Structure formats: C-alpha cells, structure tokens
C-alpha cells in the first residue's frame, strides 16, 4: 500500500487553467481599446456630464496648457487625404511614402512647412520633438482652421472633440472656438473627466 502512495505522480493538469486564461485573454483582446499615445500630457477638467464620447469618427483637438494645439484623427484614410489636401493648399508636395508615414500615426501637430522634414525623422525622434511644435492657430497663420476644414471634407461624419488642459488660459480656448465657429462647426464636444453629481437639496 505504502508503495502505491509514493508512486502517485504530482502532475497537475493545467489544461482547464489554460482554457480559462485563453478565454480571458480573448475577452481582453476583443474589448480593449488601447490607450492612445498623446504627444503631451493633458488633464481634462472634471464635470458631472455623463455622456460618453463615441469611439469612431473622432477628430480631437488637443490643447496643452501653454496653448500648443495638436490634432488627431482616428481613421488612416482620413489622415492620408487630409495631408494631401493640406499639401495642395500650402503647395508642399508630399511623396506617397511621406503620406503613408503620416497616416500611420494618429496624432499630428507640426507646422505644414516643417512637416516634410518632420516626416523624414525616425518615429522615436518625432515623439521627442513634436511637443515643441504644435499646429499654428493664431490669426495670422491659422493652419488649424485648414486642418479642420480639410478633415471635414475628407470625412463628413467626423465629430469634433476638444480635449484641453484645465489650466489652459481662456483666450486660447476662445480662439479655437472662434475658429470652429468660422467654419460653421457649431456642435462639438468638450472632453472632461467624471465627477459625482452633487445632491441638490430642495428646502
């Protein structure tokens, strides 16, 4: 008897465990939306609004607290055609290779005349220097206006979302809102983070 007990193997069958993990893995892979890499860190202010932003067809305008503006489009085809149109408008010619490179990264934010040079850099370098630029959005050189205009032309269903840092001075936001108003883009979203609705006591 004692011999038999000794012989019993300690093999644990991991098949069931593996089944579970694979299931979980599939779940996470299917439900996950990756955290988008943004050129600058932005802390949106809090609000009680509970509306969720849709997942697709977003044109987001990222505003850093110093007033630098970046944009992102979530569709590769949109980015491609936007740069093409921008190139035509500002008479900068982009090769198809440059267009492809541009369309691969969701975020962009360099002046159009520096774009060609910027696209020539390897992507690690790009991430480093993009935060020093930003799309010019002042009244003398309002490239942002054209980016938004051509984005709208590329995809009519785009929803505009402004994601700005809480400490951004109001004039910067006002300029962007005015730019959008000039383009007759009157409905847009302001991205915020959630805070609890305060109870309203009715005495």
């Amino acid at each position, binding site marked *: 008897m004692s011999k038999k007990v000794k012989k019993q193997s300690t093999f644990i069958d991991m098949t069931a465990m593996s089944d579970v993990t694979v299931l979980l893995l599939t779940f996470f892979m299917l439900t996950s939306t990756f955290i988008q890499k943004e050129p600058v860190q932005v802390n949106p202010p809090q609000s009680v609004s509970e509306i969720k932003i849709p997942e697709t067809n977003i044109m987001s305008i990222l505003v850093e607290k110093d007033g630098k503006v970046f944009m992102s489009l979530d569709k590769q085809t949109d980015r491609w055609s936007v740069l093409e149109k921008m190139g035509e408008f500002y008479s900068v010619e982009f090769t198809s290779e440059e267009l492809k490179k541009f369309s691969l990264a969701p975020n962009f934010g360099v002046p159009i005349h520096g774009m060609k040079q910027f696209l020539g850099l390897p992507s690690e370098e790009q991430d480093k220097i993009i935060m020093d630029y930003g799309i010019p959005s002042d009244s003398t050189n309002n490239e942002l206006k054209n980016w938004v205009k051509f984005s709208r032309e590329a995809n009519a269903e785009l929803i505009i979302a402004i994601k700005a840092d809480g*400490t951004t001075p109001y004039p910067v936001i006002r300029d962007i809102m005015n730019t959008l108003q000039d383009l007759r883009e009157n409905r847009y979203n302001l991205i915020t983070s959630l805070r609890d609705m305060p109870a309203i006591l009715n005495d």
Partner: protein
Amino acid sequence: MAEIQEKDSGEQKKGKQKKFNIHVDFTPMVDMNMLLITFFMLCTTMSKPQTMEISMPRKDIVSEQDQNKVKESKAITILLGKNSKVYYYFGLPDYDHPESVTETDFSADGIRKVLLGRNEEVVRKILELKKKKENLEISDEQYQTEASEVRSDKNSPVVMIKATEFSQYKDLIDALDEMQICNIGRYAISDITPGDLRVLQDLTHEGYTSDLKEVIEYREQSQ
C-alpha cells in the same frame, strides 16, 4: 485531459511500447497566457472619457438684437475672473455702481445657490419628474423629453457666461457644469464687453482693463 492513453490492442509483441502516456504539460502555456492577460489589462482603458456637448450659435446669424431679446428680469450674467473667482449680476449691468456685481466662487454655497434660487420652479419640477421616474410612473425616455421641456421653459432664467482673458478653461467647464447641476436649459457663452471689464476693474482693482500695463504684467506673471 492533456494526456493520451494508448490502450494495448492485444498485440503483445513489443512489450516496451505497449503502454505509454503522452502528457502535455500546460504550465508554460498558462504562464504565457497570464503574462499576456496582464499586458492587455494594463494597456487598456476600460472607461471612456466623458464629454460635454455644446452647440454654439452660428456667427453669421447672431446679431446684437437677438442677444438683447432676453428679458431683463430673467437674465443672469456670470463673469469669470482671475483665480477662479466668479462675478454675477442680474438683468442689465449698472456701470455706475460696481457694487451691483457680486463676487462669489464655484463652491456649493457660491454661484450654485444663486442659480438654484433663481431657478427654483424648474428645479422643483425636475425633482418631481425624477421622483416619478423612480416610482416607475414614467419611462426614462419620457423623463428626458419632459425634463428638457421644463428646462427650456419660457420663464426660466437665461444665463450668459462671459469669461475674461484671465480665466482658465477649467472655470468655463465649471460654469457649464453649474448649468447642468442647476438645470438651466437656456445659457450661452458670449464675449465679454468692455463695459463688463470696466465694472470688474472698478469692483476689484485687479487690472481687468484700462490700465494696459497692469494687464500685461499680470499676463507675464501667470506665464
């Protein structure tokens, strides 16, 4: 499970190969899966960011006349000042008496109390509707439509939000937030007028206007 047992089929020529188990050890597989799960869990955003929908008036349509149509008795103007301070006045501004503009802030006892006081009727109706919804007397959809009707009632107050150059984006969002909390359906963001700045300057002497040097200094400081 992860093993295949070959039963001997009766032939007993080669005794050594007669019976053998194929164990597949799944432990490394599980290890790898766990790693991948951890990776995916850390890299995902489960909660989508919230958003606030606003619609601005079209620039070409809005004229001075339209803006002045608001009944004087129903109008509240909120001015966003420096350091997240809020100023408000009812009706038309009285430029000669800066005391008519009151200073407050975004706390529960600040601007919210004022707005709730002005919007009492709507808030009461909304609360009634909420109760009805909780008692399942009306559906969620009905609640939404009726609530928006109540909010856009002709007699509800109209709030003008005017931000000065010295306010931050956060103040604007806070102000818009108060509109939602206080159930104010009619509000607009509009440009600040020189008169408003003048009143603010007279009230606070914090360099809102006129003294250009002061304004520039303040801006440089905050940068």
